């Protein structure tokens, strides 16, 4: 029986009730949890921290534009197979010439096709019950990738290439699957239908305070308060790219190297703002709005590009 107890976050991860609930539902129903939300809201961290906290085996598949089911599930290593079969021929020839030392195939036998199947994270997770599988940023995948997973998700079964071996897992042992997406492209409806969906809301200031406490337990309250205030102010400016939790944490990491008063001063003067605001246009907007700064010629420059 897989691990199905409610998980409410750990010392290092603050999991709000809604997310904890959705995660619980997905694990109980044996369906993958699809998490969306702004960058830096801790989507990827959830399965990592969960696996760490509950001491479970973790498999990660970072999706990229070149991802394919081959890499994700299993791949037949044709090169090795060809090499080994040629080595067999060579060995026979060597024997005929009286050479005793045979070339090695490292224990693989061309008779046994399974030797040449390279297992990807999915196959590994499905063959170790009660593990955690993270499919990170699935929206970066080629369009056909999510559709290729449908069968496996609903039947909990992968068929290995060439060897035809089937890796199957029972509903009880189904690994915990967490899929994250930044919505860069729409996922197919059929795929979403097989997932439990949760959208992580951007944390409210009081939650943010708790998150910061988990990361920097020793940070000065005053420093954190000022930083949070400025952070949410920046987010309200309607920048093209709003600063995220991750960036706030990075900023604090830099700021906390200074003594309290100095740190507050630095935050107020927006030192190291480049950590939070990442485009020239946004930077101009911030300068303009927060300082009413017009002596620079930023404003005159056309916004056209």
């Amino acid at each position, binding site marked *: 029986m897989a691990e199905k107890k409610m998980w409410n976050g750990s010392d290092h991860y603050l999991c709000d009730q809604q997310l904890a609930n959705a995660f619980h539902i997905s694990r*109980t129903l044996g369906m993958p949890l699809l998490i969306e939300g702004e960058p830096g809201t801790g989507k990827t961290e959830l399965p990592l921290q969960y696996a760490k906290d509950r001491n479970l085996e973790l498999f990660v598949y970072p999706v990229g534009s*070149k991802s394919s089911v081959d890499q994700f599930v299993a791949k037949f290593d044709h090169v090795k197979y060809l090499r080994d079969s040629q080595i067999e021929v060579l060995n026979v020839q060597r024997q005929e010439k009286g050479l005793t030392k045979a070339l090695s195939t490292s224990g693989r036998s061309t008779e046994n096709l399974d030797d040449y199947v390279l297992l990807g994270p999915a196959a590994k997770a499905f063959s170790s019950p009660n593990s955690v599988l993270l499919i990170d940023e699935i929206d970066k995948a080629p369009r056909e990738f999510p559709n290729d997973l449908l069968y496996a998700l609903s039947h909990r079964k992968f068929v290995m290439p060439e060897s035809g071996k089937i890796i199957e897992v029972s509903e009880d042992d189904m690994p915990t699957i967490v899929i994250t997406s930044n919505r860069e492209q729409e996922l197919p409806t059929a795929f979403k239908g097989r997932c439990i969906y949760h959208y992580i809301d951007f944390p409210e200031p009081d939650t943010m305070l708790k998150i910061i406490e988990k990361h920097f337990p020793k940070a000065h309250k005053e420093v954190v308060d000022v930083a949070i205030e400025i952070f949410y102010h920046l987010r309200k400016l309607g920048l093209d790219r709003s600063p995220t939790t991750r960036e706030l944490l990075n900023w604090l990491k830099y700021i906390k190297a200074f003594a309290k008063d100095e740190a507050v001063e630095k935050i107020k003067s927006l030192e190291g703002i480049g950590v939070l605001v990442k485009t020239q246009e946004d930077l101009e907007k911030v300068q303009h709005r927060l300082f009413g700064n017009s002596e620079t010629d930023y404003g005159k420059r056309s916004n056209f590009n």
Partner: protein
Amino acid sequence: MFEGLPQAFKQYGLDTDVRTLLLLRKSIKLGLIKTFGDLFATLKSIVVKEQKLLGPFTKAYYDYFLNIQIRPGERLDDAIRRSETFERWKEELLLEDPDLQAKDMTYFIDRFLSEVHLTQHDIKQILSGREILDQDNPDMLDRGGGNPSEGRILDRAADYSEIDMKELLERMEKVRRQQSDLHGGGSHWIGQGGISPYGFGGAAFGGIRVGGTGGGKMARKVIDDPRYFPVDLDKTIRDDNVDAALASLNGVIETSAQEELDIPVTITNGIKQGGLFLPEMKDIESEKMQILLLVDNGGYSMDPHIRSVTKLFRKMKTRFAHDLEVYYFHNTIYDEVYSDERRRLPYPIRKLVDHDPNYCLFIIGDAAMAPYELTPRSLESWNALKSKFKKIAWLNPEPISYWSHTLTTTYLSKLIPMYPLTPRGIERAVRKMNKASLRP
């Protein structure tokens, strides 16, 4: 049980069917649903597959289960306040505990929401006392376990989680029917019927905030927040649905993750290795996203649309940074288009046709003009573009029903595939384009 649910939820634009019911039943069997709040949370996870559907879901849920209809633009608090369900619930509550009469409306609504959204985990948290400690309320800490009435709630909460599931569900369904049947005049409200352990706890409720931190707060936020309502996918692109349109446009980006056997290299290397042929793979080159945009910016019929359209494509450019060239024309094209918005710098069609045939060509215009403007010379230019670019689409800001009223629109739509300039229209255009790009 709940047979009418898929149909009822569908009316709110939610994708519910018999599978929803099966999953719901499975959730019940697995013990996920023990309270009304659980039902909300679980159903939400099953039904809502996109952030923007959370609003419609909340509405559908309140309508179906609580008989509370939230009017467009109405705040959840107001919808609850004017609902009969709430009225009856309040009566019940006051009957049990007349002392509450002094409390204001906010108290009752908060409490109502707390009961509706109370999940079994909330109960567990209360039982473990963690919720109370987390409340950060010094008053509460002082009174702590010493408070007899608090002990009473906890007892009830505990009792409650032992209630037989089948019985509870039957009660739930019965209560639901009574809620929606006004003539039933039922004396049961959900709380009273035992869905919430506090419903009959009366006085014991004092001070403990439960649902307020979770579901209730969310439901409120959702109803008040325009972000949670789906943008109209069939509305002509405006500033508010530019992002939805952008999402559909993303589909034009061609990515490919395939490898194929590089035969020449395999053979050359195989010969070099004395007949040991090792397969050499190569990536099938992924196509880039290349877009040509022709915008009709003449005449004021197009004016309102131009800004949103340029915004859309410019956003696309900054987000994905690829080839995007914009040209302008007025009504139709003859031998040239223009590379500036004021149409002063001509750009000949033959140069346009010189582009790589893999470019996607989007034409944006209403295609409405005097018939004599659409000369054979003009048609020749359109034909030249059409035969060069297989991925071609005309996006028309006018509603589809108007197209047939204009002769030139009808004609051009026969020549070039025409789609409404809406997120859905763009999606269809892109899908068609992708099909055109599939090589035999």
